[in-house]
């Protein structure tokens, strides 16, 4: 019974993903193809390069930066206003 529930949920996620895939595919048809980049093969290596670790650290920092900015924005814009204390007349 539990497996049926899990499978049905996975099916629902797949359905939503399929809709997004169709939308992406349709969007791709309207995008103009850029000019081929001759340096493409030179820039892409097949194997990992440990020397590029700072780039990975930079990406982690970029996500952290987005999180900090988001935290400020959400706090400022989405935090409920402070409740006023009830003052008896």
């Amino acid at each position, binding site marked *: 019974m539990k497996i049926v529930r899990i499978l049905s949920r996975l099916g629902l996620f797949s359905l939503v993903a399929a809709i997004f895939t169709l*939308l992406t595919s349709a969007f791709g048809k309207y995008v103009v193809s850029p000019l081929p980049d001759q340096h493409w093969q030179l820039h892409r290596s097949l194997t990992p390069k440990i020397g590029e670790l700072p780039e990975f650290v930079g990406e982690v920092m970029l996500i952290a930066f987005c999180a900090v900015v988001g935290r400020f924005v959400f706090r400022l814009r989405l935090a409920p206003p402070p409740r006023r204390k009830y003052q008896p007349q």
Partner: protein
Amino acid sequence: MVAVVNAQTEIATAESTKPAKWRLKFMFWLDAALLVSVSALQTLHFTGLVLHEWLGLAVVPLILIHLLFAWSWIAAETRRFLTSQSARARVNYLLNLSLFAAVTAATYSGILISQRAVPALTRSKAATELDYKWDKLHNEFAIIVVILTGLHLAINWDWVLAAGKRIFRRSLRGRI
């Protein structure tokens, strides 16, 4: 007698909270793995093309597990979305939906331009010419994923902090 009953109750409580603790720990480490994976996927020079493509495919089941664990929230918020809801809950819902859409788009475009992983899985030959259009779109979707991941982290920051505190405090206590 009272002491025995108390002890039994304590054991029962500990037993019932065990799945919750396991769930929290699992979710925390799953999310941490997803965060590291998203960062690694952005650095093609660091991972190399082969690892990049296989990692991109491996992330898909992780995301599905992440979504399955959040099912009760997704179901409740979807039902409540059009009715009474706070601005925060609405923004959170739209943010999560956009993140799912961006991840789907990045995965789909990644599959289209795959040179190693997808040809290996389907036992087909990789295209000799790169589809520059989908390559460009793949990079753009990936940037959107990074930004939305940061915002997703921001809006769930309280949960991350609380879960981290509980997990690390417990493991520190266990060592002492």
